[in-house]
């Protein structure tokens, strides 16, 4: 037998197919990957160190910058962590608004994913459509919070301000529009033979190992395991709205994960409609915090988690009884997906499929190294 020659290929950090600023070192035989190694650290800012120097309110302004495509679960986690340690109550309306913001964030994140996933399969039209339509959701955010990408809206004790007049009807209008557009995306993306052939059977995660390997979010649901923090451990009012968690797509490949997301974006639209119905019209949205310079939290710790568009987002918040956080440790879903899992499932795949697999796992470097 002829001995195969192994070549080393560095994919990234400057590479159009990589989801952000990271590098995958591949060892290939011909076109097949025999070994993969993820190199991260290109986006490390030392958030956890910076938060030790800031007080509890100042830290709130930088947590949203930890994950760029979907900042709101960070704010939610931080706020709930602080509230759990302090025992602070949140007004009812504020909790509904938080849910609304989280679901809008999920939708905009999935729309960005549509562009990335189809772009990595060579279908650039969908990216033009979905990223263009994402601007309508960002417009809503801009009206509500003042920022397109970073909102700094969900803070300890509630949310920063009430809904503007007529905001609910504008949300409903955007949802109606998006629902119509999603059918268009289906026809171009999911009915497309190119996309089907490129994704089916690619990037297989063995379902029996998935939980043990630390897989969360859409990749875990794509393996046929019903797991969603919104159901497992309902936060805010997720136990009062009805939605389905998909477990019928169980082929555990890129295709199944794409179908899971396609299903969930419709569920999110559905949830938002229920939120708009059930949200009370009046009421306070913020439980006032004391003077932030003198705001001390009791000594204690809390582990809180939120379901983001890429999976379970966990925060471990520790307070030592002073004005500053002692430690805030962030556990992003991509931390496992992008390193150990990616290194495992890339073996045996083709070089051209690396970008596809990375997009389907939701690899997001800024939250891996923080």
């Amino acid at each position, binding site marked *: 037998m002829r001995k195969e020659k192994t070549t080393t290929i560095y994919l990234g950090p*400057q590479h159009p197919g990589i989801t952000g600023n990271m590098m995958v070192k591949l060892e290939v035989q011909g076109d097949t990957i025999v070994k993969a190694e993820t190199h991260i650290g290109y986006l490390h*800012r030392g958030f956890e160190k910076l938060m030790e120097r800031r007080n509890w309110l100042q830290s709130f302004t930088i947590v949203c910058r930890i994950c760029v495509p979907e900042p709101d679960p960070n704010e939610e986690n931080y706020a709930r962590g602080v509230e759990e340690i302090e025992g602070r109550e949140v007004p009812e309306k504020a909790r509904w608004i938080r849910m609304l913001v989280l679901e809008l964030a999920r939708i905009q994140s999935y729309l960005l994913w549509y562009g990335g996933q189809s772009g990595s399969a060579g279908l650039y039209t969908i990216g033009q459509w979905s990223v263009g339509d994402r*601007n309508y959701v960002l417009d809503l955010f801009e009206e509500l919070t003042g920022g*397109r990408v970073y909102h700094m809206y969900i803070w300890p004790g509630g949310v920063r301000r009430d809904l503007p007049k007529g905001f609910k009807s504008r949300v409903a209008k955007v949802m109606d529009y998006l629902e119509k557009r999603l059918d268009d995306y289906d026809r171009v993306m999911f009915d497309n033979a190119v996309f089907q052939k490129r994704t089916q059977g690619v990037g297989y995660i063995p379902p029996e190992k998935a939980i043990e390997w630390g897989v969360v979010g859409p990749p875990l649901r794509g393996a046929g395991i019903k797991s969603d923090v919104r159901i497992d451990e309902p936060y805010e009012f997720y136990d009062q709205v009805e939605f389905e968690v998909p477990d019928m797509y169980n082929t555990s490949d890129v295709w199944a994960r794409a179908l899971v997301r396609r299903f969930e974006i419709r569920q999110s639209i559905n949830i938002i409609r229920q939120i708009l119905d059930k949200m009370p019209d009046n009421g306070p949205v913020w439980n006032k915090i004391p003077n932030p310079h003198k705001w001390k939290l009791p000594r204690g710790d809390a582990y809180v988690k939120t379901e983001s568009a890429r999976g379970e987002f966990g925060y471990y918040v520790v307070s030592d009884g002073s004005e500053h956080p002692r430690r805030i440790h962030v556990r992003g879903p991509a931390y496992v997906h992008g390193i150990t899992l990616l290194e495992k499932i890339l073996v045996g795949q083709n070089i051209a499929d690396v970008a596809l697999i990375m997009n389907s796992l939701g690899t997001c470097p800024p939250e891996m190294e923080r």
Partner: protein
Amino acid sequence: MNYVLNDRESSKIVEFIKNFARKNSLWVLAYGTGCGAIEIPPTMTSRYDAERFSVRGAATPRQADVLLITGYLSVKTLKRVIRSYEQMQDPKYVIGFGSCTINGGMYWDSYNTIKQLDLYLPVDVYINGCMPRPEAVLAGFAKLQELIGKGEANGWKHYKENLEWYRQNQQKLIKNWKMPDYNW
């Protein structure tokens, strides 16, 4: 031919045509160095459509004209960015994008991000904001085009002339300097 080019008036015309061509085909290196990269897809796609202003992405450094530094640069990335910048062909331009490139921004006390981009690379245009809206990005590109048209976007010449100074700054941060020499 020689005669025509030595004529002062004609060389002005040649320069004008060159600049006109350069400013109307800006290929941006697709390197999302920081979190600002999230506003690049909206800028490039249907609503803001940067392509109508003759701006679009290029996959490799050797075919790109503009290096967009989208936000904070960690020291580890700075090394790769310098390498990418030196691979690009003349003329080349650098846009600093976001507050963090100007003065550290949010991360002013972080141990791992640089505070002032123009110590390490010649910046032609800064766009401020955290993060800048797509309109601001387009305005930044328009400003760059204006500078190129006037022949004032000469950061790359400046880098060549003051390579010593830039190298000194770069090597102060990057401890393990194992890079090939700048290949003109």
